[in-house]
C-alpha cells in the first residue's frame, strides 16, 4: 500500500523580492559602479528571482575602505560589551524574521523548507547569540590576556548553507572586533542581502559589515586586497589552495574550510535502524551538498547485506520534489553546473565498474534534480571513493576488522568528518582516537552547534570555526 501526500507548500507571500539588489557598502545599498548585474534563479524551477549587482574592482575597493574606516574610527574603539549587544540584536532580528529567511533560502538555494526552517536559520541566529557573549570575555578565552583582532577580514562563503555560512563567518569576526567584507556565493546571494537589511535594522554602524556580490573574480579581488589582513574561506579544496598560493609570502592570515570525503563506519553491533537513519541523514541531508557528508559508507562485511536491504527500503521512502513543500526530504541540486559535476562523477563510477542503485523516483521536468543513489562494489582507487561528489550519492565499501576500517577511513587526502556506529563505548572511543578527522559523530551524524568547533585535518583546511577554538581564527597570533 502506498500513501499519497497532498501538496503542503509553504507560502512565499512572506518574501518580498525586489527586482534588483545593490551591493551593501558602508551601510547602504548601492549599484555596482559600472552598473553590471547578474541573475539569480530558483534551481527547483529555473525561474528568475532577481538581478544582483556584480562587484568589480572599484566596488571591492570601496567596500574595503568602508570596512577599514569603520574598524579604525568606530568598531575598534567601542567597548566590547557594546559590540556584543549589536550581535545580540542581530540574533534576535534573525529569529523574528526566521520564516522569511527560511522561505527565501529555499527559493534561492533549492534546499527543503524543513531544513531551512529547522536547521539553517535557527542555527544562524544561534551563532550570533553565542558569539555575542564572547565579545566582552575574550581575555578569558585562553588566547592571551589582551587578544587583538586582525582589522579588516575578507570572507568568501559557499552556496550550500548560504545564511548559515554567513553567520559562521560574520558572528565570530565581529565578536572579536574585526570588520568584514563578505562575498556570498554567485548562485545564492539573496539571504546575505536580506541579512544586510538586518544589519540596518539592528543599527549596526555603517561599514562594519559590507556585502559584495559577484563571482570568483570578485572573490579574488578580496583575497588579493592589500588592506585586508585575514581571509576566511569556505568552499572547494581547489579554490582553497588557490587562496593559499595567493597569500603566500604576505602577512595575511587565513582559515580554510574545504572539502571532505567523510567515512561513516558501521560496525556489526550497530543499532541497525538508527544507523540507517544516520546514513540517510549523513548523505542526503541538504542533497549531499555538505562538505562533511558521510559520503563513504564503511560497513562491516557480515552485516552489509542486511544493512543495504534496509537502506534501500528507507531510500525508497525519500520524498524528492518542491523544496517549499513541508513534506519534502530531498530538494533541488543547487545549479546546472553542480548537476553536471554529479553526473560526471557518477559516470566515472559506472565506467570504473561500481554498481549503481537508486529507488524508483520521479524527477520534476523543470529544475535541477538528482535521485538518491548509492554505489556498491566500490574500490578505494575509484574516483567516487576519492573525490568529493557534493551530491546525493553514497559509495559503499566493506571492511572486516576495526583496523581495516581505520585504514580505509583515513585513506583520503581529506580529514573533515567521520561517523561511528556501534553499541560499544570503548570501540567508539578507540575508533574516534584513530580517525584523522576534525569532527566525529558517534551514533549520530551531521549535527552542528555554535559551541562546537568545526574544521578538518589535512586537505580539508586550516583552523576551526565555532566554539572557543573558533575564536583563534579571528585573533592575531594564536593557534
Amino acid at each position: 500500500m502506498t500513501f499519497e501526500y497532498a501538496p503542503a507548500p509553504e507560502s512565499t507571500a512572506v518574501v518580498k523580492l525586489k527586482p534588483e539588489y545593490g551591493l551593501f557598502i558602508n551601510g547602504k545599498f548601492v549599484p555596482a559602479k559600472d552598473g553590471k548585474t547578474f541573475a539569480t534563479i530558483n534551481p527547483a524551477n529555473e525561474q528568475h528571482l532577481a538581478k544582483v549587482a556584480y562587484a568589480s574592482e572599484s566596488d571591492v575597493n570601496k567596500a574595503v575602505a568602508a570596512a577599514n574606516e569603520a574598524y579604525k574610527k568606530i568598531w575598534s574603539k567601542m567597548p566590547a560589551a557594546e559590540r556584543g549587544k549589536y550581535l545580540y540584536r542581530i540574533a534576535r532580528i534573525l529569529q523574528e524574521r526566521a520564516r522569511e529567511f527560511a522561505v527565501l533560502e529555499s527559493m534561492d538555494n533549492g534546499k527543503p523548507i524543513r531544513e531551512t526552517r529547522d536547521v539553517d536559520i535557527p542555527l544562524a541566529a544561534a551563532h550570533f547569540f553565542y558569539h555575542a557573549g564572547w565579545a566582552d570575555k575574550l581575555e578569558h578565552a585562553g588566547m592571551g590576556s589582551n587578544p587583538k583582532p586582525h582589522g579588516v577580514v575578507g570572507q568568501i562563503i559557499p552556496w550550500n548553507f548560504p545564511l548559515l555560512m554567513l553567520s559562521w563567518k560574520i558572528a565570530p569576526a565581529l565578536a572579536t572586533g574585526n570588520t568584514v567584507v563578505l562575498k556570498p556565493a554567485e548562485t545564492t546571494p539573496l539571504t546575505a542581502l536580506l541579512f544586510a537589511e538586518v544589519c540596518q535594522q539592528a543599527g549596526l554602524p555603517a561599514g562594519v559589515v559590507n556585502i559584495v556580490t559577484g563571482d570568483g573574480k570578485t572573490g579574488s579581488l578580496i583575497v588579493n586586497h592589500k588592506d585586508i589582513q585575514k581571509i576566511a574561506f569556505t568552499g572547494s579544496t581547489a579554490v582553497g589552495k588557490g587562496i593559499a598560493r595567493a597569500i603566500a609570502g604576505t602577512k595575511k592570515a587565513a582559515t580554510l574550510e574545504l572539502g571532505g570525503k567523510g567515512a561513516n563506519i558501521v560496525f556489526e553491533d550497530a543499532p541497525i535502524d538508527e544507523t540507517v537513519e544516520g546514513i540517510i541523514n549523513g548523505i542526503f541531508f541538504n542533497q549531499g551538498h555538505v562538505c562533511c557528508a558521510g559520503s563513504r559508507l564503511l560497513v562491516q562485511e557480515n552485516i552489509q547485506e542486511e544493512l543495504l536491504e534496509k537502506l534501500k527500503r528507507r531510500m525508497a521512502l525519500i520524498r524528492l520534489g518542491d523544496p517549499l513543500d513541508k513534506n519534502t526530504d530531498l530538494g533541488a541540486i543547487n545549479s546546472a553546473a553542480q548537476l553536471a559535476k554529479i553526473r560526471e562523477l557518477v559516470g566515472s563510477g559506472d565506467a570504473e565498474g561500481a554498481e549503481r542503485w537508486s529507488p524508483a523516483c520521479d524527477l520534476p521536468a523543470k529544475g535541477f534534480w538528482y535521485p538518491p543513489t548509492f554505489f556498491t562494489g566500490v574500490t578505494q582507487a575509484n574516483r567516487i571513493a576519492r573525490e568529493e561528489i557534493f551530491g546525493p550519492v553514497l559509495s559503499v565499501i566493506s571492511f572486516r576488522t576495526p583496523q581495516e576500517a581505520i585504514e580505509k577511513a583515513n585513506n583520503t587526502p581529506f580529514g573533515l568528518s567521520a561517523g561511528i556506529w556501534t553499541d560499544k563505548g570503548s570501540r567508539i572511543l578507540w575508533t574516534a582516537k584513530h580517525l584523522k578527522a576534525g569532527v566525529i559523530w558517534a551514533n549520530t551524524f551531521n549535527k552542528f552547534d555554535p559551541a562546537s568547533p568545526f574544521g578538518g585535518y589535512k586537505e580539508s583546511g586550516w583552523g576551526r570555526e565555532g566554539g572557543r577554538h573558533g575564536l583563534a581564527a579571528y585573533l592575531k597570533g594564536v593557534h
Partner: protein
Amino acid sequence: MRIDVKKTYKLYIGGAFPRSESGRSYEVKSAKGVFIANPSQASRKDLRDAVVAARSAQAGWSSATAFNRAQILYRVAEIMEGRTSQFVDEIVALEGVTPAAAKKQVEAAIDLWVWYAGWCDKISTIFGATNPVSGSFYNFTTPEAMGVVGVFAPQKSSLLGVVQSLAPVLAAGNTAILIASEKFPLPAISLGEVLATSDVPGGVVNILTGITAELAPWMASHMDVDAIDASGLSAAQEKEARLEGVENLKRIFAFKGDQTPQRVLAFMENKTVWHPIGI
C-alpha cells in the same frame, strides 16, 4: 702528548647515525675561520628516508601516554645536563661566544626541555573543551598530534634554537625531521646523540645537516609531511615553502624564540566528538 679523538658528525635517521647516502659532506668553520668538522651534507634521499622514519614512528609516539612522553622529554633534559661541557665547547667554537654565554645557552636549552615536558599531560586539560551544545549530546574537543613535522631550526642559535623548535613539536606528540642551522649544525647532532640515549624511540626525531636552501623545497613539497616550523628559513625561502606546501595544505608557522604553549598548539589538530545522551 696525546692526540684528540675527534668526532665524525653524522646524520640521525630512524635511531641510527648514517652518513649522507650521497657521500657528501661540507666544511664547518669556527667563528675565527678555523676548520672544525665535516658534517654530512644531507640530500633529498636522506630527507625522504627521514620522513619515512618519522611516519613509521608517528603512531607509537602519538599514542604513548602523555605522562610517558613527559617523562621521556624530561629524561632528555637529564642526559643533556651531564653533557653540558660538550655543548659548551661546540657553541664556543661555532658561535664565537664566551664560555659563560655558551653555558647560559645550554642551561636555557635544558630548562626548556623541562618546561615543555610538563606541557605533555596538561595541554589537553587547558586547551581542550567540553562544549555545551543544544540537544541531548555529549560533545568534547581535544587537541591531537598533527603528524609529521618538518622543523627548520633557527640559523643563529646553535642549540637553544633547536630546542625551542623541537621540544614543543614533540610535546604535541608529533614526530620530526629537524634541519639544523647550516653554519652551526654541530650541537644539533650532539643533541641527536642525547636523544638516542634518552628513551626517545628511533624515528621520533630525525636530524639532518646540510644546505637549508637545498633541503627546504623537498621538505615543503613532500606529501607525507603535515606541517613545517619555518623559523630557520629566510623570508624568501618561507614564501617558496608556502607555495610548495599548498599541494597538501601544510600548516606552516614561524616563531621568534617564543616560549609559549601556542607553539605546542600550532602543531596540533582539534578533534571534536559528538555522542547522544540517552537511556
